[in-house]
């Protein structure tokens, strides 16, 4: 791991720069790096999208299967989000089952989609209590240069918008495919923005160097009506003041609307 001396030097340098309103790559404090979104990159998946935030690269694939609904919501399809910190993406990622970071990432993305009702799960019920569609969202981190949450949430939303389902009829409790496809029933567009606190400044879209020196991070996910559907503080042994949180919600209102335009066309 990076030695603590190097981290301290880096921390000093980045913090001083940010205190003066600047960042190492010339961005403003709340500017995002260049965002590239490419949809449909995995043809065999029902939906897919690759998002690049600077050098951070995330691929999300959506697969649609069938299964039993949960007992307490017999009329709803099932949503599952999984994240893999694929070891080629960073020297700090290791092969094996998802660790706490991957689980948190998946669950934050999941909450944004679930709590905003991004997918209309009721339209994914085939037979109440017996057979529903299952939407698997797999987040695949291909290169880690910071701000995985926002990149993953963007890619997940883009992949959902990209996703198509075959048409079908139900005959004797069994699904029979018909020709043609329909889009997944999407009813909201949650966008996550993640703040990093460095010194006493809040910045957006931290890169890996900035994340290594940040005190803490705060993710706010908003729906298209500007309501909040998910919040997550994490990422270090620092804290936020009450005022910083208010400031963050204000910036988020603006930034989520801005970012949403990158994913949702027209």
């Amino acid at each position: 791991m990076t030695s603590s001396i190097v981290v301290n030097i880096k921390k000093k340098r980045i913090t001083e720069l940010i205190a003066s309103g600047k960042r190492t790559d010339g961005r403003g404090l709340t500017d995002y790096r260049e965002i590239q979104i490419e949809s449909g990159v995995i043809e065999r998946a029902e939906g897919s999208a690759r998002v690049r935030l600077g050098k951070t690269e995330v691929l999300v694939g959506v697969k649609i299967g069938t299964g039993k609904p949960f007992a307490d919501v017999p009329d709803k399809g099932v949503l599952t989000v999984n994240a893999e910190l694929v070891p080629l993406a960073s020297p700090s990622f290791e092969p094996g089952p998802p660790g706490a970071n991957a689980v948190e990432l998946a669950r934050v993305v999941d909450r944004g989609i679930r709590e905003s009702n991004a997918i209309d799960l009721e339209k994914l019920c085939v037979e109440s209590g017996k057979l529903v569609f299952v939407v698997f969202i797999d987040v695949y981190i291909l290169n880690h240069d910071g701000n995985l949450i926002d990149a993953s949430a963007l890619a997940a939303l883009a992949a959902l918008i990209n996703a198509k389902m075959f048409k079908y009829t139900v005959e004797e409790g069994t699904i029979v495919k018909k020709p043609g496809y329909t889009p997944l029933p999407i009813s909201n567009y949650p966008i996550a923005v993640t703040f990093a606190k460095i010194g006493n400044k809040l910045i957006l879209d931290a890169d890996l160097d900035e994340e290594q020196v940040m005190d803490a991070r705060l993710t706010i996910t908003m729906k298209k009506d500007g309501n909040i559907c998910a919040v997550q503080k994490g990422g270090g042994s620092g804290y936020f003041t009450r005022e910083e949180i208010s400031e963050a919600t204000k910036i988020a209102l603006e930034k989520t609307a801005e970012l949403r335009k990158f994913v949702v066309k027209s």
Partner: protein
Amino acid sequence: MKVTKKKPKKEREKMANKKSEKLIDKKGIRLDGRKVDELRPVKMDVGVLSNADGSAYLEQGRNKILVGVYGPKEAHPRHIAKQDRAVIQCRYHMAPFSVDERKSPAPSRRDVELSKVIREALEPAVFLEYYPRTSIQVYIEILQADGGTRCAGITAAALALADAGIPMRDLVVACAAGKAGGKIALDLMDTEDKVGEADVPVALMPNLNAITLLQMDGNLSVDEFNAAVDMALGGCKKLYELQKEALKSKYVSAEEAK
């Protein structure tokens, strides 16, 4: 009642608004008789376990939570150790009998996430730099769960850390507020959490005014969110008084026992 898969508690779709209006009556009284800004009855005991270096027991409504702290001691396995400070290893764990349907004792994804955010809520309060290369272990056992266990776990864990004599900048205290029955309400119990519109757990270092945990899921306007955060912080401050009392009564009875 045939055996059917059930989703882990926090991942259920909110049965939003369907029954939520029944959670608070016209007089602003909640199902368990509380007002919207009222905490559930709370009980805290410090130093309840003889083997752990520090421990605490907390009841908040029907939540029953036991925390044991060990350390600082040599970090094991070694590769988790940090050169310049202690690490906190935190496990949030639910007893199989703590919820209505038996929970497998293997850690769920929710348990993994909560263990992480609770650790990050405690770390800012501990002088980790005093004990390089060591580990401080915080074991949080949810013996009975009734909504708000992560916050109650943090409140109890801070007591157990203090009981273990681990040097801290401040205590940490946590409380949730949320929206239920259309109103912003403090300290949601299980039914309010599941049927209600949103939940906002918050952890605070009360003397430093530092927020060390903040999460939310559900649906809130920015104003509602800010109102919920403020209400949760108010709850934190009340609970902090109880924390201090619990520590004092341990300290006093220890003094008296001399």
